[in-house]
């Protein structure tokens, strides 16, 4: 069965589903940031920036698959 994506419409302007997912994933990551700081996320990795990027891609992928 094909996975259907719902388009967001703001004032008659269509927004691509990927944009909605990308923005939502960014918002989720920003919400998680204080928790990541408390977990000392940066200390767990030699390159925390790449780890954060990977986390973003994971959230984005999950959003795309689930919704």
């Amino acid at each position, binding site marked *: 069965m094909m996975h259907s994506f719902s388009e967001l419409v703001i004032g008659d302007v269509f927004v691509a589903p990927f944009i909605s997912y990308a923005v939502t994933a960014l918002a989720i990551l920003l919400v998680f940031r204080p928790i990541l700081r408390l977990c000392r996320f940066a200390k767990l990795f030699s390159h925390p920036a790449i780890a*954060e*990027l990977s986390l973003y891609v994971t959230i984005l992928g999950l959003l795309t698959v689930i919704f």
Partner: protein
Amino acid sequence: MTTAAIVRPISFAGAPLSAWAFGIRIWIAVVVALAASFWLQLDAPSTAAVTVAILAAPTRGPALDKAFYRFVATVIGVAAAIAITGLFTQASDLLLVAIAGWVGLCVYAAGLLDGNRAYAAVLSGYTVALVAVEQIDAPQNVFEAGVERGAAIVVGIAATALVNDLLAVSDSSPPLTLRLAALHRRVRDYAGLFLGHKAADAATAAGLLRDITALHPEMESLAPETAGGSARSAAARSAAVALVAQVYAARALNALSAAEERKEADPGEPSLLSSRAAWASREFRRRDAEVQEAIAALNASTRPRQPWRTPLYRSQRIAAAAGMRAAACFVLPSAFFVLAGWPTTDVSLSLVAVLIGLGATTPDPKGFTVFTFIAAPIVVALAGTLEFVILDGADKFELLALALAPFMIGATVLMTKSNQLLSSLGRVNLILVLDIFAPSNPPSYNAQTFLFISLFVCLASALLLTAQILLPTESIERRQRWIMASARRDFEHLLSRRDRRLAPEESMFRDAARIGQIMAGGTSPRDSAVQAEALSYFDRAAAIRLGRANLARLAATSLSHLAVEADKALAAQDTQRLLDLGNTLRDMGGAESAFAEEISGELALAAVVVDAASHSDATTTEPLS
């Protein structure tokens, strides 16, 4: 005997390897942005590449911070463009006047901000010009043009962030920590001059305060860098505020030493001060420990024990004058183009707005225009070489990517040079080469378009320069007079009422930022006098604020009647009364004696500082005795 080996960074062709790595990274990001824009079939792929060039920074934090402000400012600018076009769509002359007003308003806002926030303000201004002016003959396309521009900017931001993350670009906190530690050493050396009974120049203190407050944009840009970025940013801000407070503590020590020597010369004066010297030294050491703690918190990515804000001082009057001048500088070339009636001059006019905006974020807008006027032909020649000599009709993306390499890498390496002129030339080259060349899919290779755009880039800088010569900037002396007038006004307000919004240390930082502004315009013969006067206000305001903060604690005890009296003495700058009250408090017995002793020390120090600052003359050297 030991020898210390100086490790020199490995360099290639006169630039360190890190500069070359930075250049290669920018080139990769430009290529990624262009590839994504072509794949998404965006109408303005060159905007994505230009975004990468604009966001080019050697560390991650400033690039992300600028990216955020670039996006927000584009949204504001496009919204303003739609509103302005909607209001004046039937009258293009009025539309130009409205855009001039908007550009002026944005330049005024930029004058009240610094760093990337100032950039965002001017970007909101010139986005209107880029969107509305370029569509002046087809206003129905303004929304689409705005969305295209926004999409291209998002692609550029994403390319920059992706390449920076994947290539493990270093964070900005280590270099900032080093700079704060270096400033800490300088503040200690400054205090050491007094302890060694040497005279210190007023310019040394003013220079220290300027250098500390100049870190403000970098401290702000730490926040988006990592998960612990906001904690680091707070720690850096606290370190900077504590450094300013330490400079004040050093100056208070100096004032106390001077008063001590006066007392030795006149044995008739009461012997109160010698017992306070130890207390003042303790105060200096307390500030020193605060700085160390904040720098340690910055290193550990933890929140500082004492979080302080860093309020910025900017002169409303200077900002308003710059805003009005910017609006007029946009109106004059607009009038010229309207009267000339040439076709396709909208590109040139929007470039005028870009130059006005970018110039407003530099200390010398006219100097920036002169520089662009000289650099424009060089950039045009380079863009022409890229388009018609190197590529010359090639339509493969791989060839475009390879051809861009020397221009992107070379310009970025030039940007890293310590020479300000070369560095600016590198930045202008990086941005304008992409802007003039404007890579597109399929490539156009239209010589006529290239010639028109090249001509309009040169014409825009020439016209703006003419307008700026006709509407000269106020002199440095006049700016300093305006800033000093605001310093006097703020000091009078301080005497008459209490500022409950800011902590004394935060207000000190704001005053230090004002001194930084006085020194920002350059040097003139009366600088030393102005600096001495500004430092006198800084010292007195800090003494009164710290004194009041301590008196607020005293007011909650049984000695509240003394607190009220001391508050009045502070407002009247009655130093003798302050010393008397300090004596009374020192001689207090009972359970609150230790607390009263502390407050008495603060009052005596405030009296000495206010006395020294009130009597400071306008000489360049502050005598120790």
